[in-house]
């Protein structure tokens, strides 16, 4: 009997979730995808990870970050050169370069190798202007995952705030918030999104914000319900009787208890935000054309079908895998929070 304290709610959820093998598989995929997105520059890049030149060791990929952060500068000999040409032209005996597994950057155009089939040189083939599809997919993961994550964070925060106030205070505030929720639910979200996008310049940031400010009602509705339920429960009454301020009651006491359903909704929300982003990019309203995103690869591929099957198969698979994994995790979380399914 080492653990005298009763299991905390979070621990129960974690245990329930871990017991669910399919949900865990989804979770592993999601974590892997985040790894790929975060390490995209180390997986697919036209710069070497490590290289030895004239007796010195360089780390060009890491250096690139430093340059970007303006804490360092490229040596003059490396300025404005492609490392591949540099290696071919200048390397002597004893010099070497270790490139990432996919030695191409997502924007690297190579007109001498258009529409190549998947091969050892290009794992997922190349597109019509010779860009490596594998590299674009790896970097596209970054776009998809960050859009999903940021957009959902935005609307979860808005929804939590509005829902909490409506549910906790009730009265006029509740009436206003409920009307607002109903209005937003009446407007077809995708129409709203493309209408707003039509008025704004194309950027990933705008996509995140637009998805964020159009999808909060679901979260608000859930939070409001949870707060309504909690308001009359004993622990809330007790907190108030002890003189807790409204802010303290809301944030310290009720909110942590209301988070579970919001978390479930947010996980499904990430899946649908990723779908929305790829759809927008596919239609040409999403990220700027030069940015590698799964939707934009597919949109580019549309004209080149049916001969270039690899241009649709791989990004399609990437979207499917990501969305499925998020949905599986959402499913697992929902089951874990459902007391009737507790094992």
């Amino acid at each position, binding site marked *: 009997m080492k653990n005298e304290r009763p299991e905390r709610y979070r621990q129960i959820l974690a245990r329930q979730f871990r017991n669910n093998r399919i949900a865990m598989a989804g979770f592993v995929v999601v974590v892997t995808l985040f790894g790929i997105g975060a390490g995209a520059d180390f997986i697919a890049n036209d710069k070497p990870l490590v290289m030895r030149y004239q007796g010195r060791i360089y780390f060009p990929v890491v250096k690139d970050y430093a340059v970007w952060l303006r804490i360092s500068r490229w040596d003059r000999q490396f300025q404005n050169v492609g490392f591949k040409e540099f290696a071919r032209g200048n390397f002597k005996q004893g010099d070497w370069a270790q490139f990432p597994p996919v030695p191409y950057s997502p924007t690297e155009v190579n007109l001498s190798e258009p529409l190549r089939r998947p091969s050892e040189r290009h794992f997922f083939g190349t597109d019509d202007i010779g860009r490596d599809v594998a590299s674009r997919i790896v970097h596209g993961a970054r776009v998809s995952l960050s859009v999903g994550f940021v957009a959902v964070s935005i609307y979860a925060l808005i929804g939590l705030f509005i829902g909490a106030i409506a549910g906790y205070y009730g009265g006029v505030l509740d009436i206003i918030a409920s009307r607002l929720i109903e209005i*937003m639910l009446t407007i077809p979200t*995708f129409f709203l999104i493309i*209408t707003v996008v039509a008025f704004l*310049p194309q950027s990933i940031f705008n996509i995140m914000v637009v998805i964020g400010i159009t999808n909060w009602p679901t979260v608000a509705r859930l939070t409001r319900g949870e707060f309504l339920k909690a308001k009359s429960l004993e622990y809330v009454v007790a907190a108030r009787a002890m003189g807790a301020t409204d802010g303290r009651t809301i944030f310290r006491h009720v909110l942590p208890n209301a988070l579970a359903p919001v978390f479930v909704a947010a996980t499904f929300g990430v899946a649908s935000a990723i779908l929305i982003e790829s759809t927008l990019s596919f*239609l040409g309203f999403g990220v700027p054309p030069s940015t590698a995103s799964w939707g934009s690869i597919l949109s580019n591929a549309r004209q080149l079908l049916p001969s270039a099957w690899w241009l*649709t198969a791989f990004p399609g698979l990437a979207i499917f895998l990501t969305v499925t994994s998020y949905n599986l995790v959402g499913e697992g979380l929902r089951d874990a929070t459902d007391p009737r399914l507790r094992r």
Partner: protein
Amino acid sequence: MRSYFLKRLLLIFPTLFGISVVSFLIIHLAPGDPAGIKIEEEQRSGNQLLAAQIINETRALYGLDEPLLVQYRRWLKRIATLDFGYSLRDHRPVMDKLKERIPVSIKLNGISLLLAYMLSVPLGIYAAARQHTILERLTTVLLFALYSLPPFWVATMAIVYLGGGDFWNVFPVYGLQSSGSQNWPWWQQLQDQAWHLVLPVTCMTYYTLAVLSRYMRTGMLETIRQDFIRTARAKGLSERLVLYRHALRNSMIPMITLLADVLPALIGGSIVIETLFSIPGMGFLSYEAVFSRDYPLLMGIFTLSAFLTLTGILISDFLYTLVDPRIAYEKRAA
């Protein structure tokens, strides 16, 4: 009952007001010079004449140089009279253009919705009757997979591999009828149109079906665990009677409320499908409107699609009270 209906009907007005405010806000999205920012890009890219024209016409249409309140009153009047001005592209009244397109979209969405409901209900019953069999699990997994497949990808694949003539040329992939079919006898026209609908309707339906059938399944599975079902079984009723008479009716109730959630998604989703299949509906129109920065048209489509959804939600609310009379008597939350 009647007072509930009346109250529900009166609640439309705040919603309508809200829609008008949201759409008004969208017009004012661009900071500084309204309707500006996006056009600046075009000016830079050398398309100056077009850009200047768009700015001037948009400004004149919405009176963007007047005080905000006057502007809003103008916009409200436009919504109330359904007069959204003239399309910037071909200078036809926006409403005329919409009137041609709305029936197409309603037809497409209606068929898709009907199909999704007609298929998801038996699927739910099946899941309840044959839970834990291999086939039932397979169906559940399949539906889950469908739920994660992007419709635009499925549609692209369908167009390339099932139509278009490069692999199998089974289905037409352009529009809703063959050109020149107006002179055919009616049964041939009907057949032709049905043939054209197969792919777009399939692509629109599978997603809705995946959503609905999941709810139907959980609904049925929850219902058959309840006491009254056990009672019905204990009375010695046949499994058939238990499922169809007792369980089905009770699990249908949430399906009706779901209509309110599914409808906006379906109407919005038709943008992709209509565009890919070149179907002259509202979705395709809005795609063209975004590309040509046809703001009056865009605002018209936006407002009308919200109205259409509102109507759908009202219908579902009324159906809900018809199926479950308890609702009308209770004070409804939200």
